[in-house]
């Protein structure tokens, strides 16, 4: 029994595939921020991301598309129907035979169920819907990655995370596994847990998705960023969420 449990633990650590010593060593980007930025995130009346969540609530209740249906027409009260949903994304999509992100899931409902024109990546409306849905899971632990069909995609994401890229020839792991907590110029390197997305980033003065954040990191090492909605982004997000399993969701996070 004990043997079984420890081999299960070993499997989980292998799955997470990181140099982090244990769960207790895992820290959200929140923990690396200054007290003022932390206070801004923690207080809903000061958190600029809450405006986007409120926009999302409006959109949730507004009929759209040829079907003239709102999200609420099918899903009812998001506080119940969407509670916990974001903790399981990216999740396996039977039709695509591949994982899809929460944004892609929302876009699917918009196309297939509302028959409405697609929302652009990084558009305020998509960020707002995504923030509203994810906000319903605030405080709940990340559960992504439990579905065995996801395993090859998680492996692919880990591969992307550990491969060196760009003119500066860095992997994500070089910074986020080997050097988290240290100072890269003016910024403290976090462990890269995607628990607050979409976030309000002070540097952007705007909401942004995880994909936008990752594209920033790739541009930083002078690599060609992956396109929005690309399989590479989904695989990286899947790997990161699996690696963050157990940490609470924070949406909307505030980041420097």
């Amino acid at each position, binding site marked *: 029994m004990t043997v079984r449990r420890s081999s299960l633990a070993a499997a989980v650590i292998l799955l997470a595939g990181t140099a982090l010593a244990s769960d207790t060593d895992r820290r959200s980007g929140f923990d690396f921020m200054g007290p003022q930025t932390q206070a801004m995130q923690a207080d809903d009346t000061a958190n600029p991301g809450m405006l986007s969540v409120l926009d999302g609530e409006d959109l949730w209740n507004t009929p759209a598309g040829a079907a003239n249906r709102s999200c609420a027409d099918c899903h009812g009260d998001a506080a119940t129907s969407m509670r916990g949903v974001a903790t399981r994304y990216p999740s396996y999509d039977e039709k695509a035979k591949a994982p899809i992100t929460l944004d892609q899931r929302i876009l699917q409902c918009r196309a297939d169920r509302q028959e409405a024109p697609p929302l652009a990546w990084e558009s305020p409306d998509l960020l707002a819907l995504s923030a509203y849905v994810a906000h319903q899971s605030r405080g709940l632990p990340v559960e992504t990655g439990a579905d065995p069909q996801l395993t090859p995609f998680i492996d692919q994401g880990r591969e992307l995370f550990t491969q060196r890229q*760009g*003119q*500066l020839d860095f992997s994500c792991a*070089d910074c986020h596994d080997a*050097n988290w907590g240290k*100072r890269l110029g003016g910024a403290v390197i976090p462990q890269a847990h995607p628990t607050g997305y979409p976030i309000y980033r002070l540097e952007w003065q705007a909401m942004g998705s995880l994909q936008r954040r990752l594209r920033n990191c790739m541009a930083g090492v*002078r690599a060609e*960023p992956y396109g929005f909605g690309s399989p590479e982004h989904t695989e990286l997000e899947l790997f990161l969420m699996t690696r963050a399993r157990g940490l609470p969701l924070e949406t909307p996070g505030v980041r420097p």
Partner: protein
Amino acid sequence: MRVPPSLITLALVLVLVTAPAFAERIVGDAMPDRLAAAPGDPERGRAIVTSRQTGLCLLCHSGPFPEERFQGDLAPSLAGVGSRLSEGQIRLRIADARGLDPDTIMPSYLRTDGLDRVAETWRGKPILSAGEIEDVVAFLATLKD
């Protein structure tokens, strides 16, 4: 027949940055000979080291640059590097730190081979030119304490 000096310099630069010539320039843990015809200029070197667009050094290093608010702590301080290392040792550490230690995070500033997914603007270009590296070497050599 006289070859124009600019062509000679161009040929020299091409020879210097190709891999075999690169390896031949390494003596022990140093690269004793200059990479460019002209000697480096320490003042230009200081500007490169403190620039977040060209040198990027202060992303990782700190050093005696009181006017620079944001300095990294991923790497040893550059203070005193001119008395710890010879010019040739400094040159090799900038040109090809990864060649010395494949596990280091310090980028190889003169190499363009073995890179993956480089953004179009930077493709095929080293992070610093041979001349810029000479400027940086000349500057670091002045950091005696």
